[in-house]
Structures are given as structure tokens and as C-alpha cells.
């Protein structure tokens, strides 16, 4: 049996045109039969669907062949006689296509030649045998297919050519020189073909039928990267999908943005649909330190994923309604194939290290700088004798960073019969962090199973269980004064030791700052999660073309967090002894269940028309309970639990629930495969708003120009399609589920008449019961082009997305009496527009293990702009456009989200005269201080002189992957980059501030002094009276980069060697991640964000855990 893995989302097998089956009759070998009838008969006989474009099959007759053992063999025998061939897209889904290389039916050469027997094995690039490959003698119907180990044997005329073809792989032709038993062929995956079936949400569609913008990423692309989660592996693989690892912290959340940010206060995260279960990841922590959060998507082992389909445009996403406005990522996991059990074992081990160190001052340089800064402020100097400095020169980066291991082991067993398919996998992944006391590990278990019960009924399950452990002890996104690890490591001074001779942690004698090494060694903050994501389903075929499906899904998570800070923690060493040592614990229990029912119907409405209908209903409800408690004052470090603490600091628990009821319908229609149309509508009822029900329509049209009669048939253009779509999506995801309700809180206590305090409850926040979802309306215009028989494919899209009724936090007038003086209102709109290109080329297609080279390139450009934020009254009482100013960014009409907002600098004051003639800067600037620009020209430098000084949104992002193979070698080179984005280097703001007892970058050696005036670095002065360090364009840097993200070189061992070890295939490889980065950015890494999920605080580098460079070795074995 030849069976291809079947993505589970089989709810709606898609048909181009279902073959009709006419009266069944027995035909003798000599007879011919209408091909159309024959295909129809096979469909019924094998319970499969065979698709073809009607004009390919029309009127053709073939011999009524029935000799093949399997349907595949029969089709391989029959179809070439009609100048056709087929592709098997799934176990029960065949696509009949033109066989451009078929010469003519059963034409035999005039010269009679001897038949020889050839046999051999067909393998994949990794050496695994490839079962079910069709091997045909070119120009004949003579052929065979390979067995489960990829072996075949054929008797063929000498001198003929064998054609090896298999769906998803590049066809190969091999001339037969003579009898042989070692005709070994390696087929290369055809990335274009892999995407031929696209998962579109509640169904699948052949790519050529697609009218919306969907990017597909296959298993190989995902597995290539040595990262914890699939979200990170998506980076650079699909146009329009911007993936940023905001931090190098193992296990942390990854920022995925599809076609830009469209919301200020709601989530900008796409909806993930994992085996049919919609998951909106909540990166919640009870015990937060810094901004990075454990990533619930890490519950999925990337090795279990078959494909990822990203629904980008409004029309594609609209079937997911009120949660779809940030796009939808559909994850399909692997399923078993019919046949002998396949055992796969994959393992890799690697080392990670800090990509680059930043240069900071040594002891002597620091002492000189610090003395100078004190002296300039008229304060006592810190190091009176520079020749007698403390005997330390601590390199804190060397003390805090380490070489860390990354390892992954995965074992899976899959297989099945024609009734049963199973895939069982288990994995262990462990990534130590490159900073002390950090890391992530995951155990996961995967079961996908389905069973046919009779001819019409099928039941199954997709189940993913995981246990993840994130060590969040590193205090990122914090400064030295707040015990921040990363910035603390850079800013702690070199003249103190990590530990002195007594073992006491060194502390900064000039300021209350911690010892970053001690902090890490004396604290522990761990988060342990168990997650279950999956469903059970049943499908019943009422008729061949009418199917009902029901599934019950679950998204369950329990997260347990524990923190313990010992008595020896340097940060509290100055605190009263009775309060040292602290413990915190937090728990989260979340259960989201889902019940979904769908009906798909593919009515037969004639040869020229194809129609696929879907209606469905879904109910989803969530409950989340969380609690936390904290204590301090541990008499001993012996017992790190709350019970051993002496002082109870706080306890809290809360619970929240939401529900969603949905109805949806979709019709996909095509006329002669030329004119394509999809319409869909989803009604979502949400518990989050009083106005429960929202309607989200979509319409998409496609025109396959290459199918028109006027289109030149012998053109180099093999496929040309124009698409256009409109879709409306919602966004309901406010951080707090109950935002619309007014609330009261306890704590407004007052002394009663008895003289004792009574508990008071006061109004707190004013709700807004008329809130509703944000709505995004998106238009997409796309082009799909295939050339040279699809060796080159280009997909281009242009889109315009307008999101309105933003759930904006708007300040309230204090006369409302609200304690919390803001309210969420549906105000304002944001626009994203852009262009996307994806180009796949098969540059060189080698035969029989020869040199093969293919390229996959994608480029995306997005432009983001705030269209409206509502109005407010200005000081004169007139209504003006609202702007919202944050710490370092601004939201303003006409500007992109997250625009940096600060001062502009204009060199350094050299003389007192210069200062006197310049606009007034308060606080008496001195020569050597920075001159700021008087933007509003009022002669005074104040907050009104702030202006937009940078844009953190990239102008373009791109990814390019080149894959090469030759004999047993394979090589893939993946570059990825971001262009035109600015980064706010807030690290440098601390490390070049020249204001106090913190270490500085070596760039400050060029600081302004009366004798060193030609510089851009101001003078050193304690406390920075001129506020030289204020947020200005001095801290804005170009964040563009190009990165060799991954390079993998593999070698598949020859079968002759490994067969002795009973291994059917074995590939070993070496791989490097983040190998080379070209950038002008001066910080650790240009891929950075201190506020990972904010749309208004993008692109700030402040104490963020740096990315690692990783080298791994690994193996893939199959038994």
C-alpha cells in the first residue's frame, strides 16, 4: 500500500471535480473504456477521491486495465496511455494531471532490444527509503512502484529511460545502461509540490484553487532550525510573517506578527489552530521578573509538525471570525502512513555561546572615568590613588556568560493499515542558557491516531502532552540598580571582586547595586507547565460527498511557578537580617474546551462546475484560575518553601472565564478551473462584550489566466493566476477579560464609631458596556505564477488592512470620580499595507544523485500608520487629534505605531559663549555638555522640544534559503534579515551616560575633556546635571541586519554500510544557528525587544538576554 501522510484536518476534502462514476461493468483487457468512467469506478472501489480537470479526461478512452495490485499501480499503468499522470496528495486523494513528457501511448521502438532486469532503491535526501515511488519506463505504461523500503525491480528494454516520480518530490529520469541491482536514486523534495495542498481552516484546498493569501511551510524547513518552538522556526520562511525572538532567554515567548501591528491595546498575536484547536497563547506569569514570559507554544515539539499554513489575508482568516484580525497560523501534525511500522530516531547536541562581548572599561579606565565625573561635579573622587587601585579587574561578562548545551532527542513510531493510522512520538529537548542559572526543557508525547470503523465512519484523536520547565531566574529588562542581570553585568564596576577572600559577594562601594553573579547563584525562579492540546473526533460519510464531523478539543495548561531568593542574595545583603530571604509561588490552571461540528458537501453540479460547501458550529469556553503568595524573612536557606518564611507579604487568587459560540459557512466554487470564487461568513458570539454577536464576511475571487483558451499553450509560463479578496476580521483580546464591567475594590477602610477600622469597598474602574471587538477590513490582490513547468514559482501579494474601532485606553476626566482615570473605548484606526513576494526556483535538478540546487526567497514590505486616535480638547478647549505619549514612543495620527519620541541633539557645547547664545537649556550646562535642538523654536529646551526621532518598524524583511544536494551530501544555507528599522539602545543610555559609579563602554574613552573636544561623547559628570543622557537620537541606531541564521551540512550514509546495522537510513549533520550577522547595531544583537508583545514599545534594547550562537551535530536514523 502506498499511502501519504494525511493531515488530520480532513473535515473537508477538497475536490476540483469529483469524478462521476457510471454503471460499473466488467471490461475485458482488449476493450477500452471511458477514462472518466474508469476513474469513477476506482473512486468507489478504493473509497478515494480522484480529481481531474474535466478537459484532460473528456472523451479519452483507455484499455480497461485492472492488473495492478494497487490503485496506484493501476493508475500508473493506465494514465500514461492517455498522456496523463497522477499525483497522490493524500492517502485517499489523487490528482490527475497532464504528463508533458509522455511521448505517445504504448509506442514501442522499432528497434528490438533485449530486456534487462534492473533493481535498486529509491531514497530521500536523508537516506530513508521512499515507498510508493512510481517507476515507469519512459514512454510506456510499463512500471512498478517501490516497496516500504524504497526497493523496486523491473524488466525493461535496454537503453530505455526510467522515470521516477513521487508526489512532493522532483521527478528524475535515469537511463538504463544494462542489468543492474544497484540502481539507486535519491529523490529531492519539491518544495513547490509540498505546498500543493493547503490547509485553509476547516478544510483543505489544492494550491492552484486557492483564492486567498496563504503561506505554507513544510516539516523540513521547520526541523532544520535548532530552536525550542515552531514559532521561532517560522522566521524568514513565509512572506508577511515577521518573527522576532525578542530575547535569547531559553523558552521565552516569540513575537509573531502577520502583516504588521494593528492594535494598540489588544493582542497583536495571531490565532494558532493546532490540529483544529484554536489557541490564543497567553504568556501569563504570576511571578513576573522583567518582561519575558514562558511561551505556551513550546508545548508543541517542532519535530511532530507536518506543515504550517499561515492564513494572512482577511478572506483566508475570516473563517475564524472575531479572533482572526492578526492572521491565523494553522499547525498540522504528522500522521502515520499505511505500511510497515516506521521507527525514527532524531537527536542533536550542540553548544551555544555569546555571539559577541561588549567592550567595557577595565579597572584603571573605570577609576579614571569615575574620578573625573566626581571631580567635574565638585564631589569627592572615588579613587584617590590611581596607582593603588583595588586588586581586582573583574570581567563580569566572563563571569556571567557561559558555554551552554542544547540537546534534543526524539523517537517516533508510525504506521498503519488501510483502516488504522498511528503516529506516536516522544521527545526530550533541553536548552541551557548562556547566562548562569537559566534554561528550558521539555518532555513531550504525541499521539495521532485514527481508525476506520466500517466504510463510512472514522474516529481518531490528535493529542499532544507536554511538560515544560522554564528557568526564569535571570532578571532581564532591568537596570543595575534593580538587580538586572544583563545590564547589571555590563554596568557593574570592575574594581570589585565576584567574591572576596571570605567568600562574600563583592558590592559596589559607591552605590546600592547588586552583584550579578551572586544574584544568579542565590536565586531561583522556575516555571513548570503541563499542557494538553488535542481533540478526539468522529467523521461520518452520509454520502460519498456529504460528510459530518464532530470533534471535542481541549487546550489545558497548568503552570506552577516557584521563586526562592536566599539569605545570601547580594541584593538584600544590606537589608535587615530578619527580612532576608524571600519566597514566592504562583499557580495557574487553565482549561479551554471546544466542541465543533461541521458538515461538508460537494454537490455534483455538472462537469464545468465544482462546488464545495461547508457549514459548521463551534462552542468554546475557558476557565482560568490563578493564585500567588509571597513571604520573606527566612531564618535559613534550608527549606525554600513558603512555610519557612516568617513574614507573609501577600496572597491573591482570581478566576476568569470567557465563552465563544460560533456559526460559520463557506462556499468554494470554480468554473472550468478558470474562474474561482470563495465566500464565507462567520458569526461569533462572544462573552466579552454585551453586544455578543459579530459577523465576519469574506469574498475571494481568482482567475487562472493560463487556463484560458487565448493563453499560449507552449508558453514558458505554466501557470498564471490572479487573485483578489476582501475579508473582515475581529480582535476581542483585551488583556483583562472583564474590561467592560465597572468594578469596586476593597481597602477603602475607615475608622468606625467604635474606634476600630472598618473595611470599605469603593468604586474603582469605570466599565464600558458598549464595547465591541476591533474590526479589520483587509483587501488583498495576489498573483501566482509558475514558469518552466513550475520550476520557478512566484507568489506576489499586495494588501491593504484597515483596523478600526480600536479598543483604546482613553483618559477620563477626573470629574467622573473614577479611581482609575482611563476607560477602554472603541476609538481610532490603524492601517497596514504592504507587498509580499515569494520566489521558489529549482535552479539545478540533478539526476540520480547529481548536483541539485534550489532557492526559496521571500521579501515583505509593510507600512504601518495610525489613521485616527480620536480627539480631545486642547488647552483652549478646541478639539484636536489625540496623541498618546509613552516613555519613549508616541502614538500620533499619520505616524507608525511605536515611533520613537525624544530630543534631537546638535553636538556638544564647546564654550560658554556657545551656551549663552544657544536656546536656554535649564540647569546651567557647561562646555562638554550636549546641545539639544530647540525643535519648536521657543528659545527654551523643554519637553515640548521632543519630536519623532526614529521608527522601529522595518521597511522590509526577507529570508532566503538555498538548498544543495550532491550524492549523499546535503547543504542548506538560510539567510534572514530586517531592513530599515531603528533600535533604541537603552543599554547604551546607561553605559555611555558618564554620570555615576557604573561601568561604561570603552567608547567613553573618547569623552569630551577640555583637551579632547572633537568628539560626540559628552563630558563625564556625576548626576548629569544637563541630563545629557535623556532620551534623544543619541540612543537611536539603525537596526538593519542580515544574518546567516542557519547553515546545515548533512551526509546520508550509503545503504550498503548501514544496512548491516539494520538501519534503513542514517543521516548525520552539523548545523550552525546565528552564525554570522552583518549589522551596524552596536548592542549585543539587533533582534531584540525589551517589551516583547507591545505594539507601542517596539525595538528597545534594555537589559535583554542576548541571542546565542549555536553549533550542533545531529543524526536522523530510521529503522
Amino acid at each position, binding site marked *: 500500500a502506498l499511502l501519504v501522510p494525511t493531515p488530520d484536518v480532513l473535515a473537508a476534502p477538497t475536490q476540483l471535480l469529483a469524478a462521476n462514476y457510471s454503471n460499473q461493468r466488467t471490461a475485458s483487457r482488449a476493450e477500452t473504456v471511458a477514462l472518466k468512467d474508469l476513474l469513477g469506478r476506482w473512486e468507489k472501489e478504493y473509497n478515494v477521491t480522484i480529481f481531474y480537470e474535466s478537459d484532460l479526461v473528456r472523451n479519452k478512452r483507455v484499455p480497461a486495465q485492472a492488473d495492478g495490485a494497487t490503485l496506484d499501480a493501476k493508475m500508473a499503468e493506465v494514465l500514461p496511455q492517455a498522456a496523463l499522470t497522477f499525483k497522490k496528495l493524500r492517502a485517499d486523494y489523487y490528482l490527475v494531471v497532464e504528463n508533458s513528457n509522455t511521448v505517445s501511448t504504448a509506442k514501442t521502438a522499432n528497434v528490438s532490444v533485449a530486456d534487462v532486469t534492473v533493481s535498486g532503491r529509491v531514497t530521500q535526501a536523508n537516506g530513508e527509503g521512499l515507498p510508493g515511488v512510481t517507476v515507469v519506463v519512459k514512454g510506456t505504461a510499463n512500471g512498478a512502484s517501490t516497496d516500504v523500503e524504497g526497493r523496486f525491480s523491473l524488466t525493461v528494454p535496454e537503453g530505455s529511460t526510467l522515470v521516477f516520480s513521487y508526489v512532493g518530490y522532483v521527478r528524475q529520469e535515469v537511463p538504463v545502461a544494462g542489468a543492474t541491482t544497484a540502481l539507486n536514486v535519491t529523490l529531492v523534495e519539491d518544495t513547490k509540490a509540498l505546498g500543493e495542498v493547503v490547509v485553509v481552516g476547516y478544510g483543505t484546498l489544492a494550491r492552484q484553487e486557492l483564492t486567498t493569501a496563504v503561506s505554507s511551510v513544510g516539516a523540513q524547513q521547520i526541523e532544520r532550525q535548532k530552536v525550542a518552538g515552531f514559532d521561532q522556526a517560522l522566521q524568514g520562511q513565509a512572506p508577511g510573517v515577521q518573527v522576532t525572538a525578542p530575547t535569547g532567554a531559553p523558552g521565552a515567548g516569540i513575537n509573531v506578527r502577520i502583516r504588521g501591528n494593528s492594535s494598540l491595546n489588544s493582542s497583536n498575536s495571531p490565532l494558532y489552530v493546532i490540529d483544529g484547536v484554536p489557541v490564543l497563547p497567553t504568556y501569563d506569569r504570576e511571578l513576573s521578573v522583567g518582561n519575558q514570559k514562558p511561551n505556551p507554544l513550546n508545548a508543541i515539539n517542532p519535530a511532530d509538525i507536518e506543515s504550517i499554513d499561515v492564513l494572512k489575508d482577511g478572506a483566508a482568516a475570516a473563517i475564524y471570525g472575531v479572533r482572526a484580525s492578526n492572521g491565523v497560523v494553522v499547525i498540522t501534525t504528522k500522521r502515520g502512513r499505511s505500511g510497515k511500522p516506521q521507527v525514527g530516531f532524531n537527536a542533536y547536541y550542540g553548544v551555544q555561546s555569546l555571539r559577541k562581548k561588549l567592550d567595557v572599561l577595565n579597572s584603571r579606565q573605570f577609576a579614571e572615568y569615575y574620578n573625573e565625573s566626581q571631580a567635574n561635579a565638585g564631589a569627592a573622587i572615588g579613587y584617590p590613588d590611581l596607582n593603588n587601585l583595588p586588586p581586582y579587574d573583574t570581567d563580569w561578562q566572563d563571569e556571567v556568560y557561559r558555554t551552554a548545551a542544547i540537546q534534543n532527542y526524539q523517537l517516533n513510531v508510525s504506521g498503519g493499515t488501510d483502516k488504522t493510522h498511528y503516529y506516536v512520538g516522544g521527545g526530550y529537548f533541553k536548552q541551557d542558557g548562556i547566562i548562569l542559572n537559566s534554561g528550558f526543557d521539555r518532555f513531550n508525547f504525541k499521539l495521532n491516531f485514527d481508525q476506520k470503523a466500517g466504510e463510512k465512519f472514522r474516529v481518531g484523536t490528535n493529542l499532544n502532552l507536554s511538560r515544560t520547565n522554564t528557568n526564569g531566574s535571570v532578571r532581564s529588562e532591568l537596570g543595575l540598580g534593580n538587580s538586572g542581570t544583563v545590564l547589571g553585568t555590563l554596568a557593574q564596576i570592575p574594581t570589585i571582586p565576584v567574591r572576596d577572600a571570605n567568600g562574600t559577594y563583592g558590592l559596589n562601594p559607591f552605590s546600592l547595586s547588586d552583584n550579578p553573579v551572586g544574584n544568579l547563584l542565590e536565586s531561583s525562579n522556575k516555571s513548570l507547565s503541563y499542557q494538553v492540546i488535542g481533540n478526539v473526533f468522529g467523521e461520518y460519510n452520509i454520502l460519498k460527498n456529504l460528510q459530518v464531523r464532530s470533534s471535542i478539543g481541549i487546550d489545558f495548561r497548568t503552570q506552577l511557578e516557584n521563586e526562592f531568593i536566599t539569605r545570601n542574595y547580594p541584593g538584600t545583603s544590606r537589608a535587615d537580617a530578619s527580612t532576608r530571604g524571600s519566597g514566592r509561588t504562583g499557580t495557574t490552571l487553565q482549561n479551554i474546551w471546544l466542541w465543533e461540528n461541521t458538515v461538508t458537501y460537494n454537490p455534483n453540479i455538472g462537469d464545468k462546475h465544482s462546488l464545495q460547501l461547508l457549514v459548521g458550529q463551534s*462552542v468554546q*469556553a475557558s476557565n482560568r484560575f490563578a493564585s500567588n503568595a509571597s513571604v520573606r524573612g527566612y531564618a535559613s536557606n534550608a527549606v525554600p518553601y513558603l512555610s519557612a518564611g516568617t513574614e507573609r507579604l501577600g496572597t491573591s*487568587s*482570581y*478566576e*476568569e*472565564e470567557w*465563552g465563544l*459560540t460560533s456559526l460559520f459557512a463557506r462556499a468554494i466554487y470554480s468554473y472550468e478551473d478558470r474562474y474561482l470564487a470563495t465566500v464565507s461568513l462567520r458569526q461569533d*458570539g*462572544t*462573552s*466579552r462584550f454585551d453586544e*455578543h454577536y459579530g459577523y465576519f464576511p469574506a469574498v475571494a475571487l481568482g482567475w487562472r489566466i493560463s487556463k484560458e483558451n487565448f493563453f499560449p499553450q507552449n508558453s514558458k509560463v505554466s501557470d498564471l493566476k490572479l487573485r483578489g479578496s476582501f475579508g473582515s476580521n475581529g480582535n476581542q483580546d483585551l488583556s483583562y*477579560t*472583564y474590561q467592560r*464591567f*465597572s*468594578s*469596586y*475594590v*476593597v*481597602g*477603602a*477602610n*475607615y*475608622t*468606625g*464609631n*467604635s*474606634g476600630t*477600622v*472598618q*473595611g*470599605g*469597598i*469603593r*468604586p474603582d474602574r*469605570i*466599565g*464600558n*458596556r*458598549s*464595547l465591541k471587538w476591533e474590526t479589520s477590513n483587509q483587501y488583498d490582490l495576489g498573483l501566482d505564477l509558475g514558469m518552466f513547468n513550475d520550476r520557478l514559482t512566484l507568489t506576489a501579494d499586495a494588501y491593504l488592512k484597515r483596523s478600526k474601532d480600536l479598543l483604546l485606553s482613553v*483618559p*477620563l*476626566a*477626573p*470629574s*467622573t*470620580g473614577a*479611581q482609575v*482615570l482611563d*476607560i*477602554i473605548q472603541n476609538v481610532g484606526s490603524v492601517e497596514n499595507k504592504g507587498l509580499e513576494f515569494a520566489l521558489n526556483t529549482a535552479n539545478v535538478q540533478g539526476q540520480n544523485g547529481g548536483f541539485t540546487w534550489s532557492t526559496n526567497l521571500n521579501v515583505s514590505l509593510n507600512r504601518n500608520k495610525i489613521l485616527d486616535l480620536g480627539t*480631545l*480638547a486642547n*488647552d483652549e*478647549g478646541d*478639539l484636536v487629534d489625540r496623541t498618546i505619549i509613552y516613555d519613549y514612543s508616541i502614538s500620533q495620527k499619520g505616524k507608525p505605531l511605536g515611533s520613537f519620541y525624544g530630543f534631537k541633539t546638535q553636538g556638544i557645547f564647546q564654550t560658554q559663549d556657545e551656551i549663552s547664545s544657544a536656546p536656554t537649556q535649564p540647569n546651567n550646562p557647561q562646555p562638554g555638555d550636549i546641545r539639544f535642538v530647540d525643535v519648536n523654536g521657543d528659545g527654551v529646551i523643554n519637553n515640548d522640544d521632543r519630536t519623532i526621532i526614529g521608527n522601529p518598524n522595518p521597511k522590509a524583511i526577507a529570508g532566503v534559503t538555498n538548498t544543495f544536494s550532491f550524492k549523499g551530501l546535503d547543504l542548506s544555507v538560510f539567510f534572514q534579515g530586517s531592513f530599515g528599522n531603528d533600535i533604541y539602545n537603552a543599554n547604551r543610555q546607561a553605559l555611555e551616560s558618564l554620570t555615576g559609579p557604573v561601568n561604561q563602554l570603552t567608547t567613553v574613552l573618547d569623552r569630551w575633556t577640555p583637551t579632547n573636544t572633537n568628539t560626540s561623547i559628552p563630558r563625564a559628570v556625576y548626576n548629569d546635571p544637563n541630563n545629557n543622557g535623556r532620551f534623544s537620537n543619541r540612543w537611536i541606531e539603525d537596526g538593519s541586519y542580515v544574518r546567516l541564521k542557519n547553515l546545515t551540512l548533512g551526509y546520508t550514509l550509503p545503504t550498503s554500510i548501514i544496512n548491516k546495522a539494520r538501519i534503513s537510513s542514517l543521516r548525520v549533520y552539523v548545523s550552525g544557528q546565528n552564525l554570522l550577522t552583518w549589522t551596524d547595531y552596536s548592542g549585543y544583537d539587533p533582534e531584540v525587544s525589551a517589551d516583547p508583545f507591545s505594539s507601542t514599545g517596539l525595538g528597545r534594547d534594555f537589559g535583554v538576554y542576548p541571542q546565542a550562537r549555536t553549533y550542533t551535530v545531529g543524526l536522523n536514523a530510521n529503522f
Partner: protein
Amino acid sequence: CDILDKPPLPSISPENFFQSADDAEAGLTAAYDALQGTGLYSQDLIAVGEMPSDNCTSNNGDVASLDRISWTPTTSQVYNIWRDSYLGINRANAVIRYVPTITMDEARRKQILGEAYFLRALHYYNLVKLYGGVPLRLEPTESGEQSVIALPRATVEAVYTQIVADLTAADAAVPASNANRVTNGAVNSLLAKVYLTQRQWGAAVTAANKVISTGRYSLVTNFKGLFPAENKVSETILEVQNQGNADGNNILPDLLLPSPPATYSFPKFNIPTLFLSKENEKPTDLTSVVDTVNDRRWSRVSTTTVRVDTVLYVRRDYASFVLSSSRSRGASSNDLGPFVYKWPGAPNAFNSPDNTYILRYADVLLMYAEAANEQAGPSADVLEKLNLVRTRAGLAALTPVSPQYASKKAMRDEIDRQRRLELAFEGERWYDLLRYARHNQAEAGAHAVTALDIIQQRLNRPDANYLLFPLPQAEINNNAQLQQNPGY
């Protein structure tokens, strides 16, 4: 459908609150708690009552802008008083809106509502005298509708009408005795103050007399014994109950007294003008009105011992002064100068448990005297009330034959003076001066000093616009229904 009906589980909301008698009590407690806001009796309302006046001066931050009459819509006190008053109004409104729907003891319900009416009236009175006509919000704010969150200003008259209506309702509902809480005495004392502000002398006399005639209240013998205010029941009519912790802090001691000896140091702002240099002085500083020999409320210290039975000042050049173990003069120039000792406080920063008087009996007696004098000139009745205050302070009783107080004008000046001395630094002076200035528009020269005189002195121009605060900028920006007061 159940799936879509998800009430807010973890929060108290209008949906699940105000269901029981306990809820009613908790709502009322929160309404009282609002009095402790930074913008109200813990700090700003008192600071504004003194700092612009001729009682004190400062060089420090926003407080200095009060002193210099240079406040703007963004001055913190302008914002805080407005915000905290409306917080209190909203809490009272919640009680008034929901308590009638609760099944509970009828008498208790009535009393709770009465206390809430009083508190609402008190907040509106504070607002109207500082800002003029303000938005009149009589329902708890629970919706984002523009018609709810952006109210226009009501007229001054409408606000006063509401205040009188609320106090009238309160008077019928609250008891005569109600420790730490609102009584008929408090209601009528506030009513007297409201009528006095509106120059309704007869009504003010009637209201004040309702308090006096109960016989419940009397002046404590020893003036020093009044401070700190700790429910001295004979003179207390209403105090803000502070606890010195999260359940109520009085910030004033830390602003009025020298730094505690620890590292903590806060520049004080409330410095009496007695010994300040001329440039900072205001038209009539306290020296000109104090009988420093006899007046027990005031003591000028010139030796190394301190008479701590007084409540006001010590000399700025007095080097080794020690008030208590926790309060002594530091080295900072901020610690120089005389200071107020009405809130001796505790040295834990901003956490004083000292109560603050909202209304006390001496105030009522002086209001009675003022209204009765305006109504009918100096009378035995007026003298009787005034003398109660004078004699307790150690001053001689005035007699009907004292020639210098025979005229209404002379008596008015003496009553003004006694109000200033008796209630100094309790947050009354500037409001009195404002009231006199508003009188002045009708009756020029009726008072020796009015707010207009201070404005003239500080700004070098007679700018009546400064008799009203501006509306805070945050209100103007977010409520398009409002017009800023003229001049700002």
C-alpha cells in the same frame, strides 16, 4: 446562553455588590475614607487653605505657586482637590444610588443615606468655593457614554441648591450622637458655613444656633489639649479619623514640622511668616495680630526651654530646640523658622495618625458671631460667643462697653482676627479671605484683609480671576463640555 453570560468573577462590581447590609456599611466606609485623600484633608485642602493666605509662605515647588498666587491648571493641588473631591462624590453617590435597593434595617439605611448626603454636600461645598460652578454629578459613574463621563458645569447657585438639599436630607436622617461620624451637629455646622459663604446671615445664625442650642458641645479648657485632634468629644464636631497606616494617613505633620532625625528629609512648605524676611511677607503677617503675651494659642520662644503647651511657633534662630525625641531641628535651612505644632505627628514619613478637624465648636461659635454681627451689629449675643473663644485662649473677655468694638466694622475685624488665630493652619484662612473678598465686591472695605489684597500684593494687580482656581488641565482635556474659568 450560559456560554456567553460570564460575569466578572474576580471583581466586585455593580452586579454583585450592594446586596446586603454589610455592603451598605462597606460602601459608606469607603465614602468616609475618601476624606483622607491627598487632595483633601490629608494635605492639599489644608495647604490651599493656608499657603496663599497671609498666614504662611514657601519657596518649594507647587506649594510655592500657591504662595505666589501663580497656580495654573496643572498645579498639583488644583488637580488633586478636584480629583479627590469627585472620588468622594462618586463614593457617596454609589451609596445614595444603591443602598435604597438593599433589604436591611430601615433606621440604619436611613442613617447611612443621611451620612452619604452630608459627605456629598461637603465635597461640593469645597469644590464650589474653590472652582465656582462645577459639574453636578449625582449618580455613580458606571458607563462610558459621553453623556455620563463628560458633564457640563452647573451654575454656582445650582451647586449650592444641591448642597442645601443634601444637608437638609442629611439633617433628617442622622443622629445627634454618632461617634467619629456625621451628626446633626456636623450637618448644621456645615450648613452654617454654607449660608455664611452665601451671606445668608439669618439662615447662618439659625443653623449655627441649632448646634449651639443642643448643649452637646463646649470648648475644652486647655487650648493645647485640642491637639492632636483625637476625638475630644466636647469640642469635636467632625474629624477625619487617621490611623497612621494604610487605613488613613495624615501627611501634614511631615510638611509642617522639621525633619525627623533619620536620613529622611522633606522640605517643609508651611512656614508662618512671623520671622521671615520682608520680601516674603504678606500684607499683614501674624505678628501684627497676635497678643504674644497673653494668647495661649501662640507662644514666642526666646529661651532654651520650650513651652510645649502652645501650638504654634518657635524662633528660627533657636539652635538646640527639641520638641520630642523624634522631632528636632536639623541642619538644613528648610528646618529653620517657626512652625506649627497642631499635628505633632509621628516620625514615620507621611504616616501620621493625627486626626484633622473638619468642624469644631470654636468655628461654629465664631461663625455664629460673624453672621449675627452682620445681621444686627455687635450685640451681647455676639460678644457672648466671641468671648467664649477669647477667654479660652487666655484673652480678656470683651464687654459691651469696650468702645473699640462698638461698631459692626470693628466687631467684624475682631471676629476675623479671632478666626485667623483660633483656626490658623487648620485650612480656613484662605477660604475666609476668599469669602471676605466676595463680600467686598458688594461692600468695599468691609474687611481689613481679603483675598484680593493678597492677590494685589503678589501679582501687583487686582486680579479677581484668581478668586477662583482654574479647572485642572486633565479635566479640560478630557471633558469637552467644560469652559475654563476666566483668566486661565
